């Protein structure tokens, strides 16, 4: 297992710890009163509690499945890039070093025109030879400036975490819309960064060369976002120099609010049905103190701090070139 994988697993471990804290509410206010009740527990409270438990289990299973799948896919992609890779032509090597991406750019021996950023913890740029040969020096710098933004912002990691949360919070479809808006915003921000560094003309030229071409290029990949909508927004930004507006989906917002209200109602119904806070006090044989509650809440600080420090360390590392031949 390489260091990147270990780091990623560590990060996921922290995320799971945080989730465990959320589950504490369920255990304290639903499970404990349910188990501590003398005689048979109230039917309504039991049913509501079972529904909450089922929803939490489904959310955890979905998040865990998508995280596993994403880690595996990231490894597969890195393997593919390595298998399809070739030595960097000197112009690409020079441009990468000039743009602060030394050691982070890989060439893929393919005539298809593409470039992308991959690797959640040690992001790198992959660019195909088919794309490289079409780009003039300014356009190549614009492409690298665009991808450098994604590298420095750890966008592959953010996308992975976003995908995990979206899958977990399945009761709130607005999360998916928010995630898509966020990714679209990152893409537009990467274009702005590239425009500032190299001008909009080279960026527009590179975009056209990635999108246009012979017929066999067109029926192709659909990336994470709908191609047409994003492309339209990117062109609008190039034309006007302004950030295009993205409207929230009211339908998605409504469905999400419904999901959140349903879950909250179930939670409250389960707590009330099983005797409420009084039942917890009875089970614990003592009342909650303010200091005890604050101390419990303070337990959140170490994992939150660990996540923040890990992210900061990763982001700093992403801003530096890598030694040539560094392990993925």
């Amino acid at each position: 297992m390489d260091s990147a994988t270990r780091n990623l697993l560590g990060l996921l471990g922290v995320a799971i710890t945080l989730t465990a804290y959320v589950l504490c509410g369920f255990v304290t206010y639903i499970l404990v009163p349910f188990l501590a009740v003398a005689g048979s527990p109230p039917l309504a409270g039991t049913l509501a509690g079972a529904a909450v438990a089922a929803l939490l289990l489904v959310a955890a299973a979905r998040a865990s499945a998508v995280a596993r799948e994403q880690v595996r896919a990231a490894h597969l992609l890195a393997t593919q890039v390595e298998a399809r890779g070739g030595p960097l032509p000197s112009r690409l090597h020079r441009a990468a070093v000039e743009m602060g991406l030394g050691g982070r750019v890989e060439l893929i021996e393919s005539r298809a025109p593409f470039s992308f950023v991959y690797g959640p913890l040690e992001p790198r740029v992959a660019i195909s030879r088919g794309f490289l040969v079409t780009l003039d020096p300014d356009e190549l710098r614009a492409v690298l400036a665009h991808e450098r933004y994604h590298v420095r912002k750890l966008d592959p990691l953010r996308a992975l975490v976003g995908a995990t949360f979206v899958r977990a919070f399945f009761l709130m479809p607005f999360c998916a819309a928010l995630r898509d808006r966020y990714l679209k915003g990152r893409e537009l921000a990467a274009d702005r960064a590239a425009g500032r560094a190299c001008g909009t003309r080279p960026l527009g030229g590179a975009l056209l060369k990635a999108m246009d071409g012979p017929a066999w290029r067109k029926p192709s990949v659909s990336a994470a976002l709908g191609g047409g909508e994003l492309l339209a927004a990117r062109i609008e930004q190039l034309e006007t120099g302004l950030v295009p507006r993205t409207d929230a989906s009211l339908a998605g917002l409504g469905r999400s609010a419904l999901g959140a209200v349903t879950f909250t109602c179930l939670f409250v119904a389960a707590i009330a049905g099983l005797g409420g806070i009084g039942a917890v006090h009875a089970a614990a044989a003592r009342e909650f103190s303010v200091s005890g509650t604050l101390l419990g809440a303070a337990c959140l600080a170490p994992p939150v701090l660990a996540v923040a420090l890990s992210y900061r360390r990763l982001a700093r590392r992403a801003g530096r070139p890598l030694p040539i031949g560094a392990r993925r």
Partner: protein
Amino acid sequence: MVDGGSSHDEFGPLEREVMDAVWAARAPVAVREVVDRLNEDRADPLAYTTVMTVMSRLAEKRALERRKVGRGYVYEAAAPDAAGIAVKELLRRHGDVAVAHLVDEARADPELLDRLRRLLEDRDG
């Protein structure tokens, strides 16, 4: 071998031959054209249905794109070589593990491409 190189180990031998024939055509092709091309130098000719089955399987794998034209289908390669197909398919299936928007997007709208060309002409002018 015209396109694609010889390293596309995700294809079986007949799939590889079919892909090479499609790449060589450089345009959308019908099954009949591929059959004729494959049988040009073959002592034991392939049946139409065999090639059709292979092409359908390649379309399911998204190595080929299929669309209806008239009463039949035409096929074209999803990318000009095996490496392109492999990487793009991975990005399509696991879009969240990479940030890939300098990739030829699905059927880019010609109107958008015209806008982009006009913008570049304006900047050049």
